[in-house]
């Protein structure tokens, strides 16, 4: 275990997987000598050469499609899309091609590739550089989607994603890149599709992910001071979703709050809420509340006011506790 920054943990995962498997290749804009816009691919060109670390033109559709073709030929491409907001630029390749390749061709071809893209706000990057669009991808059969909240998960999930035989979208959070935490050195895999109980508690369950895990844990501290014992579940993967982890926790607490940074309406919180109320409405002692962003693009100057935070989570938990 060493204290490592989130972006460094990603870099470590890439280094290790490239060492382990010579079919792992890195593709993206400025991923070579510059080491990526945020430093995720730093040192890889020097270590593995320009056969395996490929700088590309600004052509997201071509890049992501290229990864698919290479994966069909047995490579394990890891593509970096500089901001998750640019995924819409190559949406056809992701949704109509990559996600459907195995299905459309009856299993004749696989698409074992990874797309890494930083989402989320927090750097005042404005409406076209701050979005959280994970709900879209979770709705698409054929894709897997993970969103690490900690440096350890950033490493362990990425390593698992690279070894996965299906396409995995790794949605990193750019405001977490500079955060630090303990990261196991060397081989460390976090399974895709498994949530993590980040704090156990008995009064209310918070299901959350990515940056909002930090806000949720902060809220849990505040609430603990009021005698409210909160369980915090970090989903880590949203597709596949660890339904069992959610059900087990709510079974125990009978109360559920869901917190994510994306726009609340039609966000992933909706699915979790619907799924729980479908299966265990009688267990619930209060309505399921969701904390998410208001229905507006991410503003530049009012970003902090706009973003959901620990105080919003505290209020939601108080509401379900006082119901």
């Amino acid at each position, binding site marked *: 275990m060493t204290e490592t920054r989130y972006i460094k943990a990603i870099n470590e995962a890439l280094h290790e997987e490239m060492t382990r498997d010579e079919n792992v*290749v890195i593709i993206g804009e400025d991923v070579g000598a510059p080491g990526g816009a945020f430093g995720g691919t730093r040192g890889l060109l020097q270590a593995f050469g320009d056969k395996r670390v490929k700088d590309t033109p600004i052509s997201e559709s071509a890049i992501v*499609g290229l990864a698919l073709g290479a994966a069909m030929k047995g490579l394990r*491409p890891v593509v970096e899309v500089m901001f998750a907001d640019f995924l819409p630029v190559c949406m056809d390749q992701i949704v109509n*091609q990559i996600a459907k390749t195995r299905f*459309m061709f*009856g299993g*004749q*071809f696989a698409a074992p590739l990874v797309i890494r893209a930083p989402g989320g706000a927090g750097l005042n990057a404005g409406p076209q550089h701050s979005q959280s669009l994970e709900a879209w991808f979770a709705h698409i059969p054929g894709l897997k989607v993970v969103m690490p909240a900690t440096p350890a998960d950033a490493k362990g999930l990425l390593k698992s994603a690279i070894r996965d035989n299906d396409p995995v979208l790794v949605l990193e959070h750019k405001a977490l890149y500079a955060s630090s935490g303990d990261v196991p050195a060397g081989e460390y895999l976090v399974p895709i599709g498994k949530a993590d109980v980040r704090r156990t508690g008995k009064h209310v369950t918070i299901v959350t992910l990515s940056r909002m895990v930090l806000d949720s844990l902060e809220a849990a501290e505040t609430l603990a001071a009021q005698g409210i014992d909160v369980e915090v579940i970090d989903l880590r993967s949203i597709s596949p979703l660890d339904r069992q982890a959610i059900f087990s926790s709510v079974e125990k607490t009978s109360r559920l709050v869901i917190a994510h940074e994306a726009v609340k309406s039609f966000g992933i919180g909706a699915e979790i809420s619907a799924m729980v109320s479908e299966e265990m409405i009688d267990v619930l002692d209060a309505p399921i509340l969701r904390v998410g962003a208001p229905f507006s693009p991410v503003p530049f100057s009012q970003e902090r006011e706009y973003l959901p935070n620990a105080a919003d989570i505290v209020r939601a938990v108080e509401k379900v506790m006082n119901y």
Partner: protein
Amino acid sequence: MTKPKDPAISAAIPNDDGLMDLHHSMLRVRLVEEKLLQVFADGKIPGFIHVSIGQEAVATGVCSCLTPADTIFTTHRGHGHTLAKGMELKPFMAEIFGRANGACHGNSGSMHVASAEAGVGGANGIVGAGLPISLGSAFGTAFKGEDSVTVVFFGDGASNQGTFHESLNLAALWNLPLVFVCENNGWAQFSAQKAYMKIDSIARRADGYGMPGVLVDGDDVLKVRDGMRQALARARAGDGPTLLECKTYRWFGHYAGDPQKYRPAANVEQARTVDCIANFEKFLIEQGLAGRQQLDDVDARLRVEIDEAIAYAEASPAAPKGQYLNDVYA
């Protein structure tokens, strides 16, 4: 193209430089698609199909230069390319009929025929979407040190999608072993070429990427083959991609059943006077390379093969219940 599995052909007549194979391949595509039109009209095929009748010289001219180790990517109008590349007829047909032993388990039909075995990386229902994927195929084989080549087919209409541009730029930049084959049949769905681009020849665009662009008569299988041979030689020598434009004509509607109100029947009739197969047969006979009877025998044998494939597809079971859930994830 895998060699046609018809020993009678090579035994009986001189097959100088594979000419009889070219004939066999073109005629096979033609007869398959004519049959498909018929069974489609009979309501035996669900969904819709797009035929390439009249354009067989492109599929055959290009694929005759390839080996099974080479990979092609094609379009909604991909039957011809796929068959010329050597895909087995039975799983092809069963897929179009939507049966369990179709090449794709009946998941996807005519617009997505594919064969890993024959090096067919798949037809594609999204216009222009195959080009980016073909980049990766070429990159992948080069990465592995294989000397095989990737070919991507697309239409004149597709050449106006952004993916065309991004893909040609990247392929030229990386010197990929890739041939871009633009099958210019003059039409995109219900519109004629002049309605969607100001220039006549798509090959002209190659220069903007630092890549050679070559225009050939797509109705002459030998000219297509010549163009392709040169492009392939470049690719195999590590000299990078080529844009090969094959000018041809779409004889039928955009899809089977298209009433084609958007173009005068007379124009189509006129265009149909240029028949790549009839012309090639004439050439073979004139050159003394084949006799009418021999060509008719090929035709007859092909019809038997095709009828068998149709019978196979029709006799094939429907996909088992819930099959669609089986191929979503590994």
